[in-house]
């Protein structure tokens, strides 16, 4: 590996180095603030190194990683989301007893894992990135070690391990057939790939479908979303999805998966089922985190439309949507993690029942406003990022004449409106006298979290009103061979 290789890898090396530093810091002197600052500094430095890496790219760093515009852009999204999650976690963990510093270490390593995934050009790096991400997530989900956390962590561990096994078996079959594990050579050899190769790809889809929580591999999602602490849920919903979807775009784009009619048909079915099942199951939820979990299933279904549309338009649309969705969902879980449940002392239950939000508009207009904006964005109402994002997806779908998928998207997001609206409606209902009041006026939520939420709100509106700069940036950098 040459010096240039190292410069290209800086965006991944720096967070890893920060994680090691935090470990040393913990062993010398535990300090929550210092751990958080180290984390932010590490991510900041990594983000600063992105242009540097871009200057030397695109570059193949050994056969395992490729640092190109696509990888760097996705790493950028991952870093930004991790940065925000770290700040939200700081606010959240102050309410929770126990040791806090390890969480940052795990967050950083998980971000490295996701980054490796989007930059991978080889099964080995794909697998190691995925596994690094998942292993950190097991611990992160169970982090506060309450009953729900442990249960969610264990469920995620079991299902993620099973899905990883499928993924591995699929890879092994592909390798057995073609004799190589590099994406570019797979693409060349794949054209002649026989039926075992296709079976391998099918198993790969099962494995990645689990991670993306697509129907019918979605069962873990609501439990994990509900059981994990809110900032970690935000992390699962953004970084892990961005990482896996980035990988999906790169890998399947490169091996020409969409050329196989069966695969295309299979993925179309998965997309439609995800859109409808997610939205329909969300209708009956009483828990906000579960509701958002089901909504995320449907959103991943929407994203598959752009993936299936393929081509530069599909890639751009999917990338834009991932950014818009990440910004939105970070805001939503930021709110969920920031508001203490009414009638609970600090450190108690999270405000995750829909009833906890009753009258929020009158109690905390500012937070309620941010939450409403995120919900409108998820529903795809104008002036929000979600609107432009959904429009872009529809555009990609229509542009490739995927009318069935496009219409399913339209119809299922019509269903989705209902539950987002119900939540917003609850927020401006008059609180039941006394019952909805919070026990005392709890200490003002941490200013850092407020600042982050304000920034996210700005981003949601900015992307909804003037998305042209971001779209241009995506079109310039995110290109797949």
């Amino acid at each position, binding site marked *: 590996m040459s010096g240039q290789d190292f410069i290209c890898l800086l965006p991944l090396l720096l967070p890893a180095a920060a*994680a*090691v530093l935090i470990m*040393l810091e913990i062993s010398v002197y535990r300090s929550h603030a210092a751990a958080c600052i180290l984390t932010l500094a590490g991510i900041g430095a990594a983000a600063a190194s992105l242009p540097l890496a871009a200057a030397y790219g695109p570059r193949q760093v*050994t056969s*395992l*990683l490729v640092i190109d515009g696509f990888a760097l852009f996705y790493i950028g999204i991952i870093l930004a989301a991790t940065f925000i999650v770290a700040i939200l976690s700081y606010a959240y963990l102050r309410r929770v007893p126990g040791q806090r510093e390890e969480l940052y270490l795990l967050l950083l390593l998980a971000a490295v894992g996701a980054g490796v995934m989007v930059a991978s050009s080889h099964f080995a790096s794909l697998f190691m990135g995925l596994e*690094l991400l998942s292993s950190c997530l097991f611990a992160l989900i169970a982090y506060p070690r309450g009953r729900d956390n442990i249960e969610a962590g264990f469920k995620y561990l079991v299902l993620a391990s099973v899905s990883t096994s499928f993924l591995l078996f699929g890879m092994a079959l592909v390798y057995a057939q073609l004799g190589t594990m590099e994406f570019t050579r797979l693409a060349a050899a794949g054209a002649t790939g026989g*039926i*075992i190769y296709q*079976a391998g790809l099918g198993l790969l889809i099962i494995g990645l479908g689990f991670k993306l929580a697509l129907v019918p591999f979605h069962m873990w999602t609501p439990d994990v979303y509900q059981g994990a602490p809110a900032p970690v849920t935000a992390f699962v919903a953004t970084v892990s999805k961005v990482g896996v979807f980035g990988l999906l775009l790169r890998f399947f784009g490169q091996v020409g998966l969409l050329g196989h009619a069966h695969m295309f048909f299979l993925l179309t079915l998965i997309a439609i089922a995800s859109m409808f099942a997610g939205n329909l199951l969300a209708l009956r939820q009483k828990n906000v985190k579960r509701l958002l979990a089901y909504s995320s299933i449907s959103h991943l279904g929407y994203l598959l439309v752009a993936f299936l549309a393929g081509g530069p338009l599909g890639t751009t649309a999917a990338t834009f949507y991932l950014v818009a969705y990440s910004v939105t969902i970070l805001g939503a879980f930021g709110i969920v993690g920031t508001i203490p449940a009414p009638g609970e002392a600090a450190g108690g239950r999270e405000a995750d029942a829909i009833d906890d939000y009753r009258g929020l508009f009158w109690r905390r207009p500012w937070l309620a406003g941010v939450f409403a904006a995120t919900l409108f964005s998820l529903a795809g109402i104008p002036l929000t990022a979600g609107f432009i994002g959904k429009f872009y997806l529809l555009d990609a779908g229509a542009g490739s004449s995927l009318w069935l998928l496009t219409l399913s998207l339209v119809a299922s997001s019509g269903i989705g409106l209902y539950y987002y609206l119900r939540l917003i409606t609850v927020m401006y209902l008059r609180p039941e006298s006394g019952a909805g009041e919070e026990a005392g006026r709890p200490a003002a939520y941490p200013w850092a979290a407020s600042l982050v939420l304000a920034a996210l709100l700005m981003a949601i509106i900015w992307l909804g009103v003037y998305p042209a700069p971001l779209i241009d940036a995506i079109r310039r950098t995110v290109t797949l061979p």
Partner: protein
Amino acid sequence: MQITFYISAAVAVVATLAVITRYNAVHALLYLIVSLLAVALIFFILGAPFIAALEAIIYAGAIMVLFIFVIMILNLGPQAVRQERAWLKPQMWLGPAALALVLMGELVYLLFSGGQSGQSGAPVGAREVGIALFGPYLIGVELASLLLLAGLVGAYHLGRRGDAAVVVELEEAAARDAEAPAVSALSAGQTEGGDAR
């Protein structure tokens, strides 16, 4: 030589079936070790002696010891076996077995209708494996070290401060064992990883 392959394969399958059907966890574990050793033998036959050794030492050795520890801590005695027997009614196997058989059938069909099939060739020894590991796969080694760090910290955090002193001991064992593959398989990689830290 082929006959040894078939015998080992048969042993592996039978032992594995026994693993998932036992009521007593320790028995299941012993069967799993048998199965892993059979697989190690197959690795040897396939010309991967280094991997065969790893399978025996780390998988059948270190990782299985972890299970033993936990089973001992949880003190799963005859009562647990009775309970397990009550939980695991024969009819509970119907669904999973059918599902697994269907999937298996499909895969077998695909494997045999796939046509062109290769054969195992000359053995690939530890030397080649080591050269590849610290050549093109260097980044993979680094990632493995990060993965182990994550496992270490995660297991430490989750297992910490239980209600019994034994738990603390166990978590230390877990941490040690999590490092074990690194020590043996990545012995040189350890210094690499150490630098990165």
